[in-house]
């Protein structure tokens, strides 16, 4: 079953009067299978966050459709099995990490001892057990990001959607996060994350999707890259700056055209 299915998705933003609307996502189609870790890569402004916003129902698509586990994203129930971590979020400065997680847990329909146990476990997991009773305003940016990771995992999701997941984390935090994502994969959780940190993606992804100017320009299994390109970074730079796919040297990529090679959906 597809955890994510996106078909001909377009996201446009209104522009000033007399100007054409800005098309952030342009006829994007892809699928993510259950159990995969997929990196959604692109430069700043490529359309990663707009795609994720449309996937999570935060931004109505201009056209096309998106589904989570076969259910249209417009329906609130489509998010029942999804954990989401935004790029940056400043959780209420007047609540503690425990209270923050309790709020999100109750909104997810959890309650009682189940919720309390799960919060305690997650705070331990993200290394905030000692800070569970201090106000969020005393926490550093990295610690708040850990609160965010905990809230994303709170509902024991089948799909994790992470937007610029490692922003704000120190190197140790990033390593721990990688391990955590791998553990989630072992449990059958699908992970879809956007990033422009290519080294992170190379280490943990099964597959990468590269988006540029709102269009999908490459879709590859990471195993395909091994031994054929020097690094994911080289491959990525070739794609977005020079418009060539190093794995298909004969074909020069035109970013205006939809060229997707590699892994079959």
């Amino acid at each position: 079953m597809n955890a994510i299915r996106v078909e001909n998705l377009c996201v446009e933003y209104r522009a000033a009067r007399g100007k054409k609307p800005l098309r952030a996502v342009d006829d994007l189609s892809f699928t993510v299978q259950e159990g995969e870790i997929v990196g959604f890569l692109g430069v700043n402004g490529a359309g990663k966050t707009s795609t994720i916003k449309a996937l999570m129902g935060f931004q109505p698509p201009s056209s096309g459709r998106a589904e989570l586990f076969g259910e249209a994203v417009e329906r609130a129930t489509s998010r029942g099995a999804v954990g989401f971590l935004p790029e940056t979020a400043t959780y209420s400065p007047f609540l503690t990490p425990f209270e923050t997680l309790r709020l999100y847990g109750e909104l997810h329909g959890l309650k009682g001892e189940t919720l309390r146990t799960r919060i305690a476990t997650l705070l331990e997991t993200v290394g905030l057990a000692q800070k569970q009773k201090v106000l969020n305003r005393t926490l550093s940016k990295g610690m708040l990001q850990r609160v965010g990771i905990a809230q994303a995992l709170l509902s024991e999701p089948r799909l994790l959607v992470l937007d610029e997941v490692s922003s704000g984390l120190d190197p140790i935090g990033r390593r721990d996060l990688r391990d955590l994502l791998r553990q989630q994969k072992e449990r059958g959780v699908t992970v879809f994350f956007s990033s422009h940190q290519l080294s992170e993606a190379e280490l943990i992804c099964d597959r990468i999707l590269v988006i540029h100017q709102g269009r999908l320009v490459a879709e590859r299994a990471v195993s395909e890259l091994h031994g054929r390109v020097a690094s994911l970074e080289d491959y990525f730079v070739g794609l977005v700056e020079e418009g060539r796919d190093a794995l298909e040297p004969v074909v020069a990529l035109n970013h205006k055209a939809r060229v997707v090679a590699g892994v079959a959906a």
Partner: protein
Amino acid sequence: MNLDTATLNPSNHARKQGGLARTWQICRAFTQASLLETLRRKDLYVLVVLTALMVFGSYSFTFFGVSGLEIFVKDMAFTAVGIFSTIVGVLVAARQVPEELSRRTIYPLLARPITRWQLLLGKFVAAWVTCIVCFLMLALVARLVLLATGIPVQPIFWQYLLLKCVGFGWLCGFTMCLSLLMSQGAAVTIALLLCSGSAVITRAFVMFYDPTSGINPLINAGYALAPNYALFDLTKKVVYDWKPISASPILFLLAYGLPISLFWLSLGWMRFRKQAV
């Protein structure tokens, strides 16, 4: 990080979105968070102290031999409670959604299996309950100070409390609607202006009312939708020791208060339901 996540189970937690019990749980969760936030902000305590000081200050004239100040002291007490609770109410209601947007915590909220109406309703109930708690704290302080100074308050006080609580529903619905249509600052300013000028605005509709005119339905509709905040305010009747008013106007105001609050909230929801965040 300790990465022992043995208790995490990747089972599906897709839950039904509807249902009264579910909506109640959402409202309760938001209310708990809103109360904690409000009680941890220090501004409420400043207003409580200020109310007590104002009542004691007005009573202090008796020390200089001025007598017959009961009405004046009561006026000061309940005016302070009215003004401060309105300010707190507007500020609490106006920050419910815009603050989630500015902190970007709206994303993890909307990522839950809840509809935008449930989110908005939960926030509305949270703001309403928070306003009532703040108002009751201020009213309790004023009442205790009046008791300490030996100034009696008539039973109409309880009707005053009840109607004020209903009025805060209108205040929260109206202010939240404004906060979804404009910036937080503009919503606060307009809500405070309309609340303070409420009596004048609604009186204008009464003045234009003419039993023989054909536009009466329009005037009636305008009156119902006008900022009727003052309609729920019995401050002057408490100050001037009125007897409790009969049940029918109270019941009418209760029946009017909830639908009109939900009307304003629904108006805000119409803007919010498809809004890109």
